[in-house]
């Protein structure tokens, strides 16, 4: 049996639509399921109380603070190194041995499972540098983990800036640094920020790497040397140890809401910033 072009067109259309619908359906099912199970748990007390009796009762305030601190620290560490490396690769070299080594390393780092980062962080930061289980160890480890993403997305954003902008800037007798800081960087900012938002999401959601480096402590952290249990880890422990499925769903729902919020807020900020120039 031979298909007419019209028939094959129809079949292809159906298959592609079905695939897309399936994916959207599955995704929304997961999100809705977690939100339906978790949102009823979330109330003011859940957000402001520290966990009690291993998280069976009480809230997750200390975990929220710990997650926030670990993420902010990781992002603060990664921004100068990641963006600096991206500018070095994109603007200061023309494909020599060193850039090949950097690119190869970054690509390899990107492919490593996060538990390996956790193990590295545990051995190097926690034990060798004697930082212990702490927000600092966790932040440093996460910074290493997201570094390749930040480098790659920033470099792509920088390379996407039209060459003519650089030429115009040079023709106005700008130095290389002035060209980069006043013309290339502002034009690439949107892409760079997008990469960082992506990384914030990964930090907030990361489990394995922070469990081994920031620890499992339930207390409210007092400094970056305090151990902490991030929300994703808390959720994992609650579910794995069978402590409280209810609170696990509550934490998961909050994580999802948080990541959605980060994306929305960051997009709005970036759009407003870009709109000023348009």
């Amino acid at each position: 049996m031979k298909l007419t072009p019209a028939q094959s067109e129809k079949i292809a259309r159906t298959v592609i639509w079905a695939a897309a619908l399936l994916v959207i359906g599955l995704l929304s099912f997961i999100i809705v399921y977690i939100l339906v199970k978790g949102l009823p748990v979330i109330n003011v007390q859940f957000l402001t109380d520290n966990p009690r009796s291993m998280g069976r009762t009480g809230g997750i305030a200390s975990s929220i603070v710990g997650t926030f601190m670990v993420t902010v620290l990781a992002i603060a560490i990664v921004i100068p190194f990641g963006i600096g490396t991206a500018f070095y690769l994109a603007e200061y070299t023309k494909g020599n041995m060193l850039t090949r080594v950097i690119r190869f390393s970054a690509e390899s780092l990107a492919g490593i499972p996060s538990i390996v980062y956790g193990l590295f962080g545990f051995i190097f930061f926690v034990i060798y540098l004697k930082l212990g289980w702490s927000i600092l160890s966790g932040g440093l480890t996460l910074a290493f983990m997201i570094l390749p993403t930040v480098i790659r997305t920033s470099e792509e954003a920088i390379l996407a800036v039209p060459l003519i902008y650089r030429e115009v800037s040079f023709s106005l007798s700008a130095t290389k640094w002035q060209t980069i800081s006043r013309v290339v960087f502002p034009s690439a900012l949107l892409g760079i920020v997008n990469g960082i938002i992506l990384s914030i999401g990964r930090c907030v959601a990361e489990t394995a790497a922070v469990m081994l480096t920031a620890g499992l402590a339930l207390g409210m952290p007092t400094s970056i040397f305090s151990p902490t249990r991030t929300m994703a880890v808390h959720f994992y422990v609650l579910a794995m140890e069978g402590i409280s499925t209810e609170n696990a769903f509550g934490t998961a729902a909050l994580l999802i809401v948080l990541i959605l919020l980060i994306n929305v807020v960051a997009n709005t900020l970036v759009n407003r910033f870009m709109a000023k120039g348009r």
Partner: protein
Amino acid sequence: MTDNVLSSNQRVKLRTDSLNLFYGSFHALGDISMEIYDRSITAIIGPSGCGKSTLLRVFNRMNDLIPGVRVEGEVLLDDFSVYGKNTDVVSLRRKVGMVFQRPNVFPKSIYDNIAIGPRKHGIKRTRQLDEIVEHSLCQVALWGEVKDDLKKSGLELTPGQQQRLCIARAIAVEPDVILMDESCSALDPESTMKIEELMFSLVEKYTIIIVTHNMEQALRVSDMAAFLMIGQDRIGKLVEYGPTIGMFSSPKDKRTEDYITGRFG
């Protein structure tokens, strides 16, 4: 308006002496020697790929951005060696500004587009910047059209206005020389005419070198014309250089005649 005739004692602003330029092993320009006169409009004409833009970009060392470029011979701006060992490219480009083929305003406000150059040179006082912006926009006859919209994005202007904004941006750093690389080729005839009128007023203060594909334009605006062509050896050479009127009325070289009468190119 210029009368297309140069007085014999006109001062030389730019001079090239046996200029050779290579892109890697490719010999792009061969033995170009010419003198460009102060406060005149010089047109570089020739068929596509003959090295017109390359020659233009020698004067502000824009070719430096391309890896593997090598320049031999001497290029002088006044008495200042453009390719000298100790030449500061940044201060060279302050004296030699450039306007590109397409209007390429930055995605910033009209004001910031013009202020970007002066700010780079350390001018921070708002009053001084305001003055520079107004003065530059007046010189390109854009002030009347945009004076109430300085905060508006430069991208909202028409292409013709954008190109005049680019010229204003170039003159805001007060260069001596303005290079224009086919700066009208992306514009409609009316905008082209406005820019040509602009050249006539700017040439009282600046030395202007243009690259153009448009013979009528070269004849209309330029005092001097340089005809470039690729020889048998694939090297771009200066075939003929002289007052535009003379070249167009009685070209000395057969190849020039063939080109300007539209027989090829």
